[in-house]
């Protein structure tokens, strides 16, 4: 039996055969006949260049398969096949998720890295898809605390879930939450993904419980559901998902973390893992953390107590009265020398997590700094990514 792979497919019912993806693909992995435009699984290297150029939304389709559908098979399709059941034992390392919807979400979240994401070499092996849509696991809410100030206009929550049996999740992985109810077509809601903010041994050491950092979105079905949960409530959970946005186990690895808002969840998990394992005897971590103001920055209080030898934190605020707006990329540029030194160190691992809008500014800052040390950013980034040292998760 072959190892299952995540195969990229195009929905023939939505595609308009404009061939823009085919023209864009740098390695000619996309081909067409009179009927369909299809991706050749033997060639596709998941560079994602075809995703944004598609005008229709037909191109972001994924199936986990033991044997990839051949080009000829796909030419004959009038609609996409259903996801086949692939059992847990077939899950191979490097798979982000076996659930197609989850895999697609993760692929999109990771697209900002500019190519196929790779886990750090020394990262622990993650478990993926232990629980899926048809077999979710039930968790019990232990606590739900507001992280933002009482007067703040955003409501970010720290939600703790406990599991009957062990739920094996690594820092940087996500879990799916199934909100109850149905959409207007009568279909149950799909799970929403949340990155865990607790380390692998649990929010409380050795208790195996899991914390999430969730922001209430105005019309968000799942975020409102999670933010309103009360202790004792039961929640249906899928996952874990994600096999690349992981921390190196090498204690000498240096982590450079950039985040905004709830993008701090994995960074908190990384920090707590380091604190509980190697403590200050590590390569160190640096974090650029952006928010509008201190009262909207999750974990503002606890963060200030973390020793600098473990984690050097730059809190950056864009809406302070009487202060010019400052964004994470501005501070990265202001810390040019320190960042340049880290970019030049082969032991540095970069993690970017937060709203999609931050990518561009952060990339620009890195581009400038790389240039100042005579390095081309895109080349450095691609090399780091291939070595599992550059990770982006944006939404």
């Amino acid at each position, binding site marked *: 039996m072959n190892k299952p792979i995540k195969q990229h497919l195009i929905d023939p019912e939505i595609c308009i055969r404009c061939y823009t993806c085919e023209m864009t693909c740098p390695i000619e992995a996309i081909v067409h006949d009179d009927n369909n435009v299809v991706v050749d699984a033997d060639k596709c290297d998941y560079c994602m260049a075809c995703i944004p*150029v598609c005008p229709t939304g037909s191109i972001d389709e994924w199936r986990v398969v033991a044997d990839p559908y051949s080009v000829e098979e796909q030419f004959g399709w009038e609609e996409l096949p259903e996801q086949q059941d692939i059992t847990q034992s077939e899950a191979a390392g490097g798979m982000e998720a076996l659930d197609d919807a989850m895999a697609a979400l993760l692929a999109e979240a990771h697209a900002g890295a500019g190519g196929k994401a790779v886990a750090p070499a020394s990262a622990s092996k993650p478990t993926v898809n232990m629980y899926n849509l048809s077999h979710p696991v039930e968790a019990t809410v232990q606590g739900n605390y507001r992280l933002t100030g009482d007067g703040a206009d955003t409501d970010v929550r720290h939600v703790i879930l406990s599991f009957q049996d062990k739920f094996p999740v690594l820092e940087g992985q996500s879990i799916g939450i199934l909100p109850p109810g149905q959409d207007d077509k009568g279909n149950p809601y799909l799970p929403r993904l949340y990155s865990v903010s607790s380390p692998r041994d649990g929010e409380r050491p050795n208790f195996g419980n899991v914390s999430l950092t969730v922001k209430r979105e105005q019309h968000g079905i799942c975020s409102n559901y999670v933010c309103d949960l009360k202790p004792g409530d039961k929640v249906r959970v899928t996952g874990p998902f994600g096999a690349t946005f992981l921390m190196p186990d090498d204690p000498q690895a240096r982590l450079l973390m950039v985040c905004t808002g709830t993008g701090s969840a994995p960074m908190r998990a990384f920090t707590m893992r380091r604190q509980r394992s190697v403590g200050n005897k590590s390569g160190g971590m640096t974090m650029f953390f952006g928010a509008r103001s201190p009262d909207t920055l999750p974990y503002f209080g606890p963060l200030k107590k973390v020793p600098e030898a473990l984690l050097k934190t730059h809190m950056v605020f864009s809406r302070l009265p009487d202060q010019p707006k400052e964004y994470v990329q501005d501070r990265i540029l202001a810390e040019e020398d320190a960042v340049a030194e880290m970019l030049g160190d082969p032991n540095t691992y970069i993690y970017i997590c937060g709203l999609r809008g931050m990518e561009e500014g952060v990339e620009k800052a890195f581009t400038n700094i790389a240039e100042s040390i005579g390095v081309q950013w895109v080349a450095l980034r691609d090399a780091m990514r291939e070595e599992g040292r550059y990770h982006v998760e944006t939404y």
Partner: protein
Amino acid sequence: MLDLINVSYDTQIPNNVGLSSDKRVLKALEKWHPGYINWWSDLIPDNFQQSLVYLRTAVSVDPKGWAKFDYVKMPEYRWGILLAPQVEDRRIPCGEHAGQPAWQEVPGEYRNLLKRLIVIQGDTEPASVEQQRFLGLTAPSLYDMRNLFQVNVEEGRHLWAMVYLLQKYFGKDGREEADDLLRRSSGSEEAPRMLGAFNEETPDWLSFFMFTYFTDRDGKMQLESLAQSGFDPLSRTCRFMLTEEAHHMFVGETGVGRTIQRTCEVMNAHGITDPYDINKIRDLGVIDLPTIQKKLNLHYTLSLDLFGQEVSTNAANAFNAGIKGRYMESRIDDDHKLTNDTYTVWDLEDGKVVQKQVPALTAINMRLRDDYTRDAAGGVGRWNKIIEKAGIEFEMKLPHESFHRQIGVFAGHNFDPDGNPLSGADYDAKVNDWLPTHADGDFIQSLMKPVYEPGQYASWISPPKVGIDNKPGDFEYVKLHMA
């Protein structure tokens, strides 16, 4: 270092052509810019100008950066000059200079030929915005309104693209031509747009969808052939424009498809099996399939006329000069010179439609038109799948190329949609079955009521299967400014 991937915002005009170090062209464009803004401001009704529209804007021309979505007021859209990255050591792909390095400057002997091609292409871009200027007032949903405005701002950008080439490479003549592009106006008595189809009003949304499907597809084919040009700046410009053009194809194909879908759903819901039970179907607030077929006949045949004469020495010259290639020239396996080849074209002999072989070089237009027809037929097949899935017996068809033509060998003769010649009297007796009548237009117009609630759609059209930028069904694509 000159950055040729990322878009630079260091001048008023976003660009990836190093405009800030090209003072002459920058000055010319800055002089042209206010006229453009005036043109745009006078065109689109003011409450839409003030509305926030969820548009995509290119921040770089590589795949990752060219589709950034955000709310923008249209007058603040970053129209700019974007060329696809230069291909190293690109060669002239066809004609007598095939294999020589592509030109980075205009070759003197082809200056006028090139300028004319660029002006004609440039003239169509603002024309379509002019034709569609009032459609926002009757948008069947905010989703469709957003798609209309995306098409409009990108046609505006395509005008910029052509104007840049004129200003950069054609000196004083080019500047005058660029000014004329803003002076001519669709449907104007004194200064109409250059091509006939671009002087017809787009009166309703079905016409808009048909226009983007059929007429913009002619634009796409022209861009495809100019993307093969040996004049490299033109090729690079057109290659980037094609990425945007794909969205226009999408709006057309899905717009017509959703209209058909809705008609089929409503027919089924009311147990109507005969697609020709027109009055009963129309009473339910949807457009009957035979009327959609008539609209298709009209727009397809008007678009065929845009390809010009079947046998053309101008087209032969442009190909031979390496100024304009064939569709997918680089993927065609021949000598790319066509010196001894022949091609099959339509002709009339003694009133009969015949096919005959002519020198391939002179049949370049015909070949592009055939490629166009093949491309256009694909979507018609997908529309038919919608009808078939609904279990209704009806099939949309592209009419024969001889039907309803004003240009080419068939002009001035009467044919039915199957290509049978017939007398003027017979044609007149049947034409109302084949082409939309005023009464058909009035009926369609009666359905054009705006729907401005997020997630809601007019009676005659189905919601899309997938949102733009994967947004949910009730996403507010346009935040309307209601002053």
